[in-house]
């Protein structure tokens, strides 16, 4: 084969990948358009029962009227943001502390076990986490944490039977933290030893040296890990559909402890559950609109992440 042909062939593979991606974004945007057209910016607003709206779309069948396109997706967007932000916040703190433990504190024998285990945990399929969540955590929360009084106090709006904010965030954190730990450990053990020893030589304690030199140096890596984890949390559909309670409800933080048990359902889980009814045009448009929102958010996330990383790098270089 000639060189010229080889270049064209390899180039074709690269271009094919790009074409698939462009097709994906364009296709989703076009299919989503009717939903945004009928709802405008109110699409993102609250008001109305999202589950009832989606149900009406299925009932409207093949020939929906404009009213059938009505979507007020706020509960779903809020649920996505809530679970993602909480899980990532907890995850970052845990990942940094765990990485310090693994790299700086743990005895070598413990470290030899813990690093492969963390990698394994990062590779465990989300459906397995979901299974453990629904068969172990949900019954536990239902039996031991929710009192009858709490159940009755909200019985006219929602049923509390275990799945909800607490279990969702816990399992989601468990799912995304291992990958963050793995990335942070990699970065932390790549910090030149001399930097920390320099700090130690100036009379700083070991902990201070780690916090002020090593952790400072790996801030871009921490941001990268957090971005990756957020993308995973944002798009997690199946596991959250198992443990979230699957109800288009916006849990209210001012409900106190009750908030932790209130059911919810993020965008991704909604798509997974409603995809069955995709033959109904109104529902199809709404589902694609949700997919577009997810896609755009994950895009903004990676762009924002690389901007933060760049500014942090510049900051340390100066």
């Amino acid at each position, binding site marked *: 084969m000639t*060189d010229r042909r*080889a*270049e064209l*062939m*390899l*180039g074709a593979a*690269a*271009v094919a*990948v*790009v074409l*698939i*991606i*462009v097709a*994906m974004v364009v296709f*989703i945007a076009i299919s989503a358009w009717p939903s945004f057209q009928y709802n405008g910016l109110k699409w993102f607003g609250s008001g109305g029962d999202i589950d009832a709206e989606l149900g009406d779309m299925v009932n409207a069948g093949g020939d929906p009227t404009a009213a059938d396109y009505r979507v007020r997706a706020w509960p779903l967007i809020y649920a996505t943001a809530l679970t993602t932000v909480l899980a990532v916040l907890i995850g970052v703190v845990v990942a940094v*502390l*765990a990485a310090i*433990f693994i*790299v*700086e*504190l*743990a005895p*070598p024998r*413990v470290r030899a076990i*813990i690093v492969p*285990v*963390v*990698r*394994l945990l990062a*590779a*465990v*399929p*989300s*459906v*397995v986490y979901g299974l*453990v969540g629904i*068969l*172990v955590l949900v019954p536990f929360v239902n039996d031991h944490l929710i009192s009858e009084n709490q159940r009755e106090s909200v019985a006219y709006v929602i049923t509390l039977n275990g799945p909800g904010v607490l279990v969702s965030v816990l399992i989601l954190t468990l799912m995304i933290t291992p990958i963050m730990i793995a990335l942070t450990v*990699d970065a*932390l053990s790549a*910090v030149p*030893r001399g930097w920390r020893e320099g700090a130690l030589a100036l009379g700083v*304690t*070991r*902990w201070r040296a780690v*916090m002020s030199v090593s952790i400072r140096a790996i801030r871009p890596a921490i941001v990268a890990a957090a*971005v990756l984890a957020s993308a995973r949390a944002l*798009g997690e*559909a*199946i596991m959250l559909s198992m443990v979230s309670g699957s109800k288009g409800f916006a849990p209210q933080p001012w409900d106190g402890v009750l908030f932790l048990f209130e059911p919810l359902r993020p965008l*991704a889980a909604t*798509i*997974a559950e409603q*995809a069955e009814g995709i033959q109904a045009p109104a529902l199809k448009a709404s589902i694609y609109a949700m*997919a577009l929102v*997810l*896609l755009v958010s*994950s*895009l903004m996330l*990676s762009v924002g992440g690389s901007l933060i990383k760049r500014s942090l790098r510049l900051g340390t270089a100066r």
Partner: protein
Amino acid sequence: MSTAPTTGGPRATPPGRRQRLLGELRLWRPLDLLGVVAAWTVGALLLLVAASLLLYMGIKGLQYVSLDLLITRPQPGADQSETGGILDPILGTLMIIAIATAIALPLAVGAALWIVEYSRPRWLARVVESGIEVIAGAPSIAIAIFGLAIFQLPIFSWASFSAADGGGVFGRSFIAAGSVMSLIALPSIFATTREALQSVPRHVREASYGLGKTKWATIRRVLLPTVKPDIATGTALGMGRIAGDTAIIVLLLGATLQLQAGSGIPGVGTLQGTGSTLTSYVYNNSPTGEGNAPEKAYAAAFVLMLLIIGLNLLVAGIGRRRAGTDLPR
């Protein structure tokens, strides 16, 4: 990486280090002490959670898994003793992995080779790189719903079966799920291949050119053999992601219990047909699904975990062999 730490990390304990550390600790500020305690707590908690999760899955799996379960086909039924085994989901998982890898591998390696060795014009190279970053970050559910729409187009009617009355294309089949799944594996194969190619020093290529080899011959005879272990690593990682993904399977494989051929032609019919994988089997047999058979779900999850652990060991094994045989560059 899990390789031996070259920098950082506690050194072998010299005698008396513990006493010195304790003495030093007394001088520390309370907040710093709190930090150390927190790090130890998190570390212990991590070990505890990991151990209990893996042990729990292991015990539950061993409790319910049996040879019988592995080699009988699943049957629909209300009674748990009649619902059969998990043969079809296992076959389904393997088929999906095979199809998706077969598509992703040449695309990803080709794209990586082009990026590192040619990448002309520059702007196109940048577009390709950011494009692959987009798929790496895109939620698999969004990719899945895109695939469903694509494979429901009439031009893809050969890939799945259509409604008997000439209505819509079903859009769910092994071909559909496998090809969409290839997008999940693509970024990891691409990233590992590209990094490996970039780490091959220039003089290796120049030596090959100096011997009169063309660029393509250099790629085939020098570069590809050199980066083969890294391609294998990326592929194994990608296979793990494929085996673990549920969203695409639930949307695009139809999630029928048994493999159902789409047409009469043997082999092709199965590819056009629907089925299930271990992940969708677990999902459907969890209390949220239709089956609600936790024992079967645990057994399937256990088999799935074994597969994932196997792929992980493979990655570690490749890495170790590579570290051993690597020539100094």
